[in-house]
């Protein structure tokens, strides 16, 4: 039973990260019908930036949580600027191009970011310093530490904040309007370019946050770290219903749980034929099942009406 609870905790933590990244995917897709293949790399840049800051300021003797906070802010700033530029330089010019072009550009951007990160930070795996007191707490036979608690709490707060932003603020209304019908929104005085940029920036901030959390939890950073989580987060977004924010959150958490429980029990289920090294393909299996059986996702999709 304690394995079960442990897997649940691990799943929720992983799921929180997925949820944060999935939101970025889903918001962008909802507004411009583009899978931003480079989004996973934004997570990576956030993590690596934060690592650089933490290592750089490490000598100052600041308390761990402060270092974490400063590095997080730095990561958010860098990632926001990055994503904003990516949208402006690489995606905006292709809004009316044949539909394969932005997809290829996005893939190229993903590769570019990975390569640049490899050049800037060198290909080695770097360990992320432990910044919060690491004594674990016990819950029903399972353990949870401060980092994990922080992840759950921060994610919950962020998600609430995002829902407030989207539902109660002017920007949020503009985003929802543009997501539903960009042309009409434009006629109502909303500037689609501004809204789209804002969407990318918000998505980047969430990904940066996810990157820092991921790094703090798993303890290592490297230029390829964003790829798989990125793909899985996209799966989560589709799982929950693309374009649907609540869907991305639900999808993310559920996917984290599925992956965690799956990895934990797959040996038992398959009589040890398949082991937890197959963990990565759970997300893909979920994706294939969802798209085959319920393509609109759990909570239904919300995509722009490009009539």
């Amino acid at each position, binding site marked *: 039973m304690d394995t079960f609870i442990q897997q649940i905790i691990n799943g929720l933590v992983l799921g929180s990260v997925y949820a944060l990244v999935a939101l970025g995917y889903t918001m962008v*897709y909802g507004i411009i019908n583009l899978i931003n293949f480079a989004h996973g790399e934004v997570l990576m840049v956030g993590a690596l930036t934060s690592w650089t800051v933490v290592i750089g300021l490490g000598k100052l003797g600041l308390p761990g949580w402060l270092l974490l906070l400063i590095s997080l802010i730095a990561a958010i700033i860098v990632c926001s600027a990055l994503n904003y530029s990516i949208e402006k330089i690489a995606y905006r010019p292709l809004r009316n191009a044949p539909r*394969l072009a932005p997809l290829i*550009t996005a893939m190229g951007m993903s590769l570019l970011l990975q390569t640049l990160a490899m050049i800037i930070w060198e290909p080695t795996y770097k360990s992320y310093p432990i910044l919060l007191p690491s004594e674990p707490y016990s819950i029903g036979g399972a353990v949870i530490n401060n980092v994990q608690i922080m992840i759950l709490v921060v994610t919950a707060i962020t998600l609430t904040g995002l829902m407030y932003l989207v539902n109660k603020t002017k920007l949020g209304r503009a985003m929802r309007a543009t997501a539903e019908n960009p042309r009409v929104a434009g006629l109502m005085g909303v500037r689609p370019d501004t809204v789209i940029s804002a969407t990318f920036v918000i998505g980047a901030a969430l990904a940066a946050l996810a990157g820092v959390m991921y790094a703090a939890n798993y303890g290592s950073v490297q230029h390829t770290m964003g790829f798989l989580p990125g793909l899985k987060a996209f799966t989560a977004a589709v799982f929950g219903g693309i374009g649907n924010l609540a869907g991305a959150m639900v999808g993310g958490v559920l996917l984290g749980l599925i992956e965690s429980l799956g990895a934990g029990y797959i040996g038992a289920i398959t009589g040890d034929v398949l082991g937890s090294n197959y963990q990565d393909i759970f997300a893909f299996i979920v994706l294939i099942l969802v798209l085959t059986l319920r393509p*609109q996702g759990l909570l239904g999709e919300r995509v722009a009406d490009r009539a």
Partner: protein
Amino acid sequence: MKDNKTLQYLLIGIGLLILPLIAQQFGNAWVRIIDIALLYVLLALGLNIVVGYAGLLDLGYVAFYAVGAYMFGLLASPQLTDAFPSIAAAFPNGLHTPWWVVIPLGAVLAGLAGMLLGAPTLKLRGDYLAIVTLGFGEIVRVFMNNLDAPVNITNGPKGIAQIDDISMFGVHFGKTQHLFGMDFPKVTNYYYLFLILVLFAILVCYRLERSRIGRAWMAIREDEIAAKAMGINTRNLKLLAFGMGATFGGVSGAMFATFQGFISPESFSLQESVMIVAMVVLGGIGHLPGVIVGALLLSALPEVLRYVAGPLQAMTGGRLDASILRQLLIALAMIGIMLSRPRGLWPSPEHGKAAATSPLPQATHMHLAPAEQIPPPVTHIAPTE
């Protein structure tokens, strides 16, 4: 006029025949680059059927490359005889399946795999199709990487080594042959084999393009609903596209296995799939000359650049080596070419000018009626009127 064309083809033909002989004077490495480039051309031609003709964005194409390669590797190497005593007993001289069994078998298997992997994607729209095929590619790779336990089939990350060379009509491709007073090392022997395969592939693609099947594929690509309304069985044709494209991949994979003598899951990563897609799209999607040029450029150019990489590497203190440079270039090419020439470097020609009657705005925006606007499953539609 006709003589001119024939002369052109003759010259090209001769050029292609003697190319390796010239190149090997500068070192076998150069011929090797050409050989690998030819394999990529074959891959790109295959993917072009799926992406270029039928408009299905397959990001997991490398899976078929892997199927062909592992098929050859398993049937013509010590892997199975080492891992399974029963097989070793049945084949006391080792498993050396001849090329005329393995290549067709690899093609057929890859073709079946293509249809199998394509089947769940038939109802998906563009972007989702891409992600699902990507997922399949990854699943294949993970299985290749992990099927070394509980039974060792693929030898996992260590890969399969000692794969046989091809031996055809008494000519052993792996050994240097001596003809007409010249040396034909392994790389040159394989060149001719690959060249024949590529030329055959080009012929097949050319003919498919100009046929009822080819038109049906393109109709699906342009507007799937309209294609269906014209009586085209889109499901079967999409499966056919996947199957045919996969066959090319499988043959190319088998050739890769025998040429390299060694294969491992590393060669079949997502990056490979992406690169092959890039070759097709950057070259000029659906347009044979463009696809070939795209494949040649993206595969051969970075290799050639190794020679430039030397000084760069020194300059940046080892951070920029040849493989990083290659990656960087491919990434920049993908972004740059899409931004400047979204239809590719050498797209199909724009024949036909605007007609005499003044075109209303609708005419030029017509191609934006995307196939993605297929009404979702019936129960969800709100009436359009």
